[in-house]
């Protein structure tokens, strides 16, 4: 098998002492950032992006692999122990996880989450290794109109289907698209919305936007809320071993969760919120059939399913990123920025031009999840100690990381002012319930959408129908329409049910 030998080469590349060290450092840092409340895997990658600049591309991506999955392993820890999920994708696992913790089963909840993340990540990564070359063949059929359709799909899906208020989702998307317009237009060379600042000619760096929006915005939000929300971590005592009964309950949930997660990594709907909640409600429905339902009292399946789903989504999202060049989540979007930093464009051509790098990265993803399982399973209580850092020191440290991250990418004071401005935007958005994911998708895919749209229209001499000419575009728009209809129906039915349940007044 061709794939096996390529992957074998990848492992040979990745298994040098230095690369293993980088992987370990990435995994430790990624888990640490993931564990911190309010910061998830997207933030782990954004803050640690500059750390990799001193490395060669291979080393950098090996470290990234560790960070990428590390954030995922870590982000449910705060959710389980404190009921403050690090990421929206960890919310579903936190519901039952926190109940388990309150019932004195915190070590078991953490272990279930770690094994869930391992199972989901492992299966998704394996599938991706074998499917990525197929995806690449498929991507070769894509022209400008198809790429534009994919981008539109991603925009509409993140802004309307996944966001809980479609108008607010679209507001966030418009903000993202506007941020993406700043800079020199690559097609014509016109400078746009730069206010004549030469520093803006290259556009606003994605690191500045993610760090400002996600990290600095969170710090400002915490500051704005004042003293409220201070929490203390419950002690994690006991050994994190799962009993045979636990495993019997958890393993089908791990697999089912993976099943929910894998397809969602390939569809650009803004990350793993959707599959984690799908997995959660599936487990809950199965649980109802039992003689004594466990949900509500800390059901282990309620942790296992969503956690595996989230991790599986991340795994297949990586496949979509590498093979199609399409970021399907905020984390993938920042990874894309990482690739672009080294002058590489993920997509079909990456497998031809940088094949060795791709396969090394895939191999290190496997190594990363194994390392992370080792780091997280026995040492989960140790990671939980991170939550004992006083809140003001924690956020002060995050702020310093923001300053460092942004300064290290460009050594420019202008970027520091810009990141503060975007942080304030992030505060405003948080206070008004505007979702952050559509901004990032808009920023990341905006330029791609624009280039491909203009290319398609230039070829067809401004005939708009050319955008709907092929089977692929029609299928994508059809799928999008179906998704929108389903979302509207679901919303209306949920509203009707709420009306029925709520007493008037």
């Amino acid at each position, binding site marked *: 098998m061709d794939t096996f030998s390529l992957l074998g080469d990848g492992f040979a590349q990745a298994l040098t002492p230095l690369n293993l060290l980088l992987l370990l450092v990435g995994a430790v840092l990624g888990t640490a950032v993931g564990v911190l409340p309010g910061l998830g895997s997207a933030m782990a990658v954004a803050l640690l992006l500059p750390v990799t600049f001193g490395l060669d591309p291979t080393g950098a991506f090996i470290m990234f692999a560790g960070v990428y999955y590390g954030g995922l392993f870590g982000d449910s820890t705060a959710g389980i122990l404190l009921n403050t*999920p690090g990421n929206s994708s960890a919310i579903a696992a936190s519901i039952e996880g926190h109940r388990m913790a309150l019932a004195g089963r915190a070590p078991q909840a953490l272990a279930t989450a770690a094994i869930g993340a391992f199972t989901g990540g492992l299966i998704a990564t394996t599938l991706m290794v074998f499917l990525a070359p197929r995806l690449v063949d498929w991507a070769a059929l894509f022209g400008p109109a198809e790429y534009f359709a994919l981008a539109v799909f991603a925009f509409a899906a993140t802004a309307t289907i996944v966001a809980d208020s479609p108008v607010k989702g*679209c507001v966030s998307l418009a903000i993202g698209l506007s941020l993406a317009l700043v800079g020199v237009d690559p097609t014509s060379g016109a400078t746009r919305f730069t206010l004549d600042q030469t520093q803006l000619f290259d556009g606003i760096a994605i690191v500045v936007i993610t760090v400002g929006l996600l990290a600095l915005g969170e710090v400002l939000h915490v*500051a704005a809320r004042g003293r409220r929300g201070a929490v203390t971590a419950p002690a994690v005592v006991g050994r994190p071993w799962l009993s045979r009964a636990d495993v019997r309950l958890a393993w089908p949930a791990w697999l089912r969760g993976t099943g929910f997660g894998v397809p969602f990594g390939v569809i650009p709907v803004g990350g793993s919120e959707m599959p984690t909640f799908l997995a959660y*409600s599936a487990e809950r429905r199965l649980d109802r059939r039992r003689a004594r339902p466990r949900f509500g009292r800390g059901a282990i399946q309620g942790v296992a399913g969503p956690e595996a789903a989230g991790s599986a989504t991340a795994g297949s999202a990586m496949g979509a990123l590498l093979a199609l060049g399409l970021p399907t989540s905020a984390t993938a979007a920042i990874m894309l920025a990482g690739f672009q930093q080294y002058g590489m464009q993920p997509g079909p051509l990456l497998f031809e031009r940088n094949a060795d790098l791709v396969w090394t990265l895939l191999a290190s993803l496997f190594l990363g999840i194994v390392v992370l399982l080792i780091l997280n399973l026995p040492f989960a209580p140790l990671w939980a100690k991170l939550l004992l850092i006083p809140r003001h020191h924690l956020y002060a440290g995050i702020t310093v990381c923001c300053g460092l991250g942004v300064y290290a990418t460009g050594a420019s004071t202008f970027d*520091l*002012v810009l990141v503060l401005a975007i942080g304030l935007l992030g505060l405003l958005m948080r206070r*008004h319930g505007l979702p952050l994911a559509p901004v990032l998708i808009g920023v990341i895919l905006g330029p791609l959408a624009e280039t491909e749209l203009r290319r398609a229209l230039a070829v067809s001499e401004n005939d708009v129908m050319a955008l709907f000419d092929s089977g692929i575009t029609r299928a994508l728009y059809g799928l999008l329409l179906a998704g929108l209809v389903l979302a509207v129906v*679901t919303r209306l039915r949920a509203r009707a049910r709420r009306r029925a349940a709520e007493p008037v007044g």
Partner: protein
Amino acid sequence: MSGTVEQDAGGLGGEPPEPAPPGGAEAAASRGDWAVVALLLALGAFLAHGTATMDVPENSGSPGPRFVPVIVTVLTFVLAALMAAQVARATAGAGVRAPERSAHGEETDWRAVGVVVASFLAFTALLSPLGWLLSAALLFWGTGYALGGRRPLFDAGVALSVSAAFQLAFSAGLGLALPAGVLEGAF
């Protein structure tokens, strides 16, 4: 994304559950959201002005560099109108819904926000002249103070150790130089 999570996705049949975020099942507009309308109008005005005054190179093809900005500008104004309609409706129904939404419009500790912003600006301004070690320590200390740290001397010690640790990790571990500033030569 913090706060308690009350999620009941149970009886949803085969449909995708609403990925309910913390803070309520229905995230419709509330009265405070006029700020969002204002933001959208300002953004739309900026985009419109920038698009109108753009220097378009002569040989840029069709569709040119103005094409997408026009779409985004129109989108922004449409959203401002939709948002305004939602907020107006929420304001009208405020008598019924006010208690439910008041948690959303909770009082803001602007002083703490101001201290964080001021510390970050000071860090930005002092980074080159003072160097990483001192300016980052100041940023750490200021942010910590804003978030309720009340042991100035101890916090200053923590701040200096943290910024020193970053400088060491970056210069020794990764070979990236952070500005040394006034402490140049002290090492």
